[in-house]
């Protein structure tokens, strides 16, 4: 399950288990490495633990009070659960885009500036520069450059999702966590978002829960197949979708279940 030994992983997950307070087991002994500057796809049937895995990586999982976690996660070699880790800083390094586009109330500009302001960045020029670049990277700049002060709720679904992507990019993170970012989007907007992802991986590591197996196959450099909280297999995108080793992966990829 390990990747190219010459590249040190940006994220190393070791024997990670996660159980919700109601005793639902979301992850069972998951071990996998994630290389930098790749699109890493986590796919599998619903309730297989994909979203939980993403949420553990930036510790949004801390919000489920009373949940049990075992195992360790290393980000750039540091244990993210060590008491010395500043959770807010971790969440700035690993920024999440959610399945349902969720603008915050306020203008487009306010949305993009929010994370920066909360991080203590006050300089208007810095904020403006980072916002402009983030909007360009998310392929939204041309559509909103003349109305940055209008409400973020007035955007279309696809624009909202790219706004959320841009909001994460403005943080200049190392890793972008995408939890089914195209779930509510039409095929055209989906294609726009997918194209921007492939552009982005030169600068960022992208970990993504895809909308479908087809999408997974389109964007994955590497992929991990989860089922019932267990990691069934992980490998390169090409191998996983053309030539899976495990019977269950094959059944899922060709659509025998799921």
């Amino acid at each position: 399950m390990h990747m190219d030994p010459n590249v040190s992983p940006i994220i190393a997950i070791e024997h990670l288990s996660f159980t919700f307070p109601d005793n639902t087991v979301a992850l069972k002994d998951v071990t996998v490495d994630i290389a930098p500057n790749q699109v890493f796809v986590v796919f599998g049937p619903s309730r297989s633990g994909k979203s939980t895995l993403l949420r553990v990586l930036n510790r949004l999982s801390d919000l489920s009070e009373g949940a049990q976690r075992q195992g360790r996660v290393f980000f750039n070699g540091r244990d993210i659960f060590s008491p010395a880790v500043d959770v807010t800083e971790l969440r700035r390094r690993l920024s999440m885009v959610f399945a349902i586009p969720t603008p915050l109330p306020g203008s487009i500009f306010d949305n993009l500036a929010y994370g920066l302001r909360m991080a203590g960045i006050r300089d208007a020029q810095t904020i403006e520069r980072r916002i402009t670049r983030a909007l360009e990277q998310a392929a939204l700049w041309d559509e909103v450059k003349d109305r940055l002060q209008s409400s973020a709720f007035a955007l279309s679904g696809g624009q909202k999702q790219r706004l959320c992507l841009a909001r994460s990019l403005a943080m200049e993170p190392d890793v972008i966590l995408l939890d089914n970012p195209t779930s509510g989007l039409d095929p055209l907007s989906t294609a726009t978002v997918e194209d921007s992802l492939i552009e982005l991986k030169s600068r960022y590591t992208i970990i993504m829960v895809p909308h479908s197996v087809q999408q997974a196959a389109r964007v994955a450099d590497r992929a991990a197949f989860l089922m019932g909280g267990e990691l069934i297999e992980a490998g390169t995108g090409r191998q996983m979708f053309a030539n899976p080793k495990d019977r269950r992966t094959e059944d899922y990829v060709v659509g025998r279940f799921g």
Partner: protein
Amino acid sequence: MTRQQTNRLAKIAISLVAALVVLPTVFVILYVVYNGIGVISWEFLFTAPRSGMREGGIWPALLGTVFLTFGTAIAAFPLAIATAIYLAEYAGDNRLTRWVRLAIVNLAGIPSIVYGLFGLGAFVLFLNLGTSIVAGSLTLGLMTLPVVISTAEEALLAVPQEFRTVSLSLGATRWQTIRHQVLPHALPGIITGIILGLGRAAGETAPILFTVAAFYLPELPRSIFDQTMALPYHLYVISTQVPGMPLSLQYGTALVLLLVVLSLTLVATVLRTRMRRRRQW
């Protein structure tokens, strides 16, 4: 009778009963307006009572009620908001929060005269504040806490959970999230709750009886440690304690009290409607 006829009949009967509820309200208001409107004048509103309260106006009582309403707001606001934020944002479901909630529910059920006695014991005597605007405001504030806390908590919980999740995921701390993404959106609702609570406080007699209200005090209070007259207690006094009191003055006082309370409710309602209209999600 067919089922449809029964259905129609039931609907008519229930609507009629519901309409009946409006009648007492309208009747009380109209009756007080009819009997009281005659004495309302500049002089009635803005001069002190004279001749053993049988003549003159209600200015000290009106102003006293305004002071007490502000005092109540200042006393209740910080405590209520802090409690509501704790309950809605920080507290989970544990033994402490269950006790806090139980206490709030019971606080709402305590008769107002008991608040009055408690205020006398705790604020007037034990804290040695004397019968004063401070003591009265604290007592009224305590009484309005449950209403304000529960409306504030509701307003906080009405802010969509996703705003909190998104804010945290962008690296904001818990407090930054509350401060920037929860409180601003909950504030109109919280203020509505406070004004409704104040509307009730402004009209109460029992809690101010032993803590602040003066029987007859034509001078205006000079500090928050002075006694003051207040409209509800003044109305009680001129209705029961003063022989030979002209009825029109009693109705005039009742009308002013009613207007004070109703205008507070009106402000709260308008605020809530405007907030709902401006909400973006």
